[in-house]
């Protein structure tokens, strides 16, 4: 136990490279490649931390000034998914997410309970996230691991469900998105589409994404978006011209640099995910599988971009208006596309419908993110992340605002039985899909 504590005390940026290296060896990558992969992941982790510190030192005081001026309660800063991911992988539960995710995936493939082969190992951070939060909340390591495990099953089942839509609407053949931010909203969009279709007048409204995107084009640029947000927050904080301009350039720098740092981390994970996918493909040569990729493949769609741009001011407005919300949306304003991208095929690219659905989703999401903030803050502290001085804590829209986060946190409160029950229900769904597909194939064979 003492040895384990010593290992954990090394810090995530030492621990993560070691785990990646060992995992690489298990997957039969060359030791040199595995070593370089591990080290690169550690470097990316440090890079993200440095940029988060810049965010903290610039936006933290501004947020505090804003809070004091308006007497509003937005003292929890949204540090965004790159930080959330790094924090999640950094906890002792989160460090196990990649081996767990891959193991669960292989077992479900063997039993035919999923068709998705998730090669996008990086995005197992979402399961690391819920696992870490449950671990922080209950202080129960086993329950955290179970949460991660159940979450990975849920992602695969949702991925199978959405795959036909992905192929039909985005035109990606045999590709699925086992992406834990994007997929839960698919279930939310289906009943909403039925409701929209039953409203007279509204159901005939059309919205053309190209027109909206062209009008807002320059706001879509990362650096410009960061600049504008920084300037806006600076003005709201009551800063002078010097302060406003400095904050603007600093937030622009954060918006631009954070993805670069993440990209370094990704680069490190790449040879590992390649090796994993090679290994699985060689073991299942004749299986009809979807290749599980990052939902980033879908976010470039014009309807997604246009709706996301409209949702940025709406999200900030919601943050101020919703009673009890303490989260100041910031870094994940740029990640809104991931929250809505799998609703887009259901709404067939209708921007009005996507924005309405997004408004409801984010409105509820802000309350979830507020609720999850103490757990995210605690996780950040255990992995040694700095966070804003003026802020009472940190949170993130992705995945802090995602419905599955609420699901697992509430289940986590009731312990193993509740989390296990979600796991059983998910497996039942997987069996149902398997049998349905079997019948479908059989009936096609009879014709």
């Amino acid at each position: 136990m003492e040895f384990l504590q010593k290992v954990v005390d090394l810090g995530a940026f030492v621990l993560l490279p070691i785990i990646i290296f060992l995992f690489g060896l298990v997957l039969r990558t060359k030791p040199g490649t595995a070593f370089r992969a591990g080290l690169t992941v550690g470097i990316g982790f440090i890079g993200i931390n440095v940029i988060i510190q810049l965010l903290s030192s610039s936006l933290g005081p501004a947020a505090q000034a804003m809070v004091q001026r308006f007497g509003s309660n937005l003292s929890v800063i949204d540090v965004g998914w790159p930080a959330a991911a790094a924090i999640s992988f950094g906890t002792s539960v989160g460090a196990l997410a990649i081996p767990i995710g891959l193991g669960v995936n292989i077992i479900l493939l063997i039993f035919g309970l999923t068709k998705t082969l998730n090669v996008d190992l990086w995005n197992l951070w979402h399961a690391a996230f819920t696992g870490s939060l449950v671990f922080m909340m209950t202080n129960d390591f086993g329950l955290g691991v179970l949460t991660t495990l159940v979450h990975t099953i849920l992602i695969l089942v949702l991925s199978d469900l959405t795959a036909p839509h992905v192929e039909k609407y985005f035109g990606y053949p045999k590709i699925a998105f086992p992406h834990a931010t994007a997929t839960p909203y698919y279930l939310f969009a289906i009943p909403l589409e039925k409701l929209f279709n039953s409203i007279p007048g509204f159901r005939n409204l059309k919205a053309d994404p190209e027109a909206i995107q062209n009008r807002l084009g320059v706001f879509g640029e990362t650096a410009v978006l960061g600049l504008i947000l920084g300037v806006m927050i600076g003005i709201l904080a009551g800063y002078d011209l010097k302060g406003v301009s400095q904050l603007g350039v600093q937030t622009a720098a954060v918006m631009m640099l954070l993805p670069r740092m993440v990209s370094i981390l990704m680069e490190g994970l790449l040879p590992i995910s390649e090796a994993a996918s090679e290994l699985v493909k060689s073991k299942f040569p004749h299986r009809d599988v979807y290749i599980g990729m990052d939902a980033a493949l879908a976010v470039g769609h014009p309807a997604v971009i246009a709706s996301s741009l409209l949702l940025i001011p709406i999200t900030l407005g919601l943050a101020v208006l919703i009673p009890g919300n303490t989260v100041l949306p910031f870094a994940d304003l740029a990640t809104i596309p991931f929250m809505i991208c799998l609703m887009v095929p259901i709404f067939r690219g209708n921007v009005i419908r996507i924005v309405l659905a997004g408004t409801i989703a984010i409105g509820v999401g802000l309350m979830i993110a507020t609720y999850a903030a103490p757990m995210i803050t605690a996780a950040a502290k255990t992995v040694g992340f700095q966070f804003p001085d003026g802020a009472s804590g940190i949170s993130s829209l992705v995945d802090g605002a995602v419905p599955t986060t609420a699901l697992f946190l509430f289940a986590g409160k009731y312990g193993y039985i509740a989390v296990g029950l979600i796991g059983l229900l998910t497996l039942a769904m997987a069996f149902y899909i398997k049998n349905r597909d079997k019948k479908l194939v059989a009936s096609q064979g009879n014709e």
Partner: protein
Amino acid sequence: MKRVAVCCGTGAATSTIAMSKLKAYIQENGLKVHLTQSRIPDITNRQSDFDFIVSTIAVPPSIKIKTLNALPLLTNMGKDKFFAEFEAALKE
């Protein structure tokens, strides 16, 4: 030297995969290319800086320059065809 923008939705995720595979291919074949990793909305207003785009996502109609679909780099299916197209685009 040709200038190529390698893009995805975030400029961090799938474009990193495309970048590393392109880099390896360029090195193996002794090609001379300048690669820039970015995201589509960030290069929309500076398309003239590039000869063509390699993108992992569908591009909006506002992108007027030649675009290659980088999906084969992510799935490893149809990779040879992609590299043939890539080399052809370099020679244009």
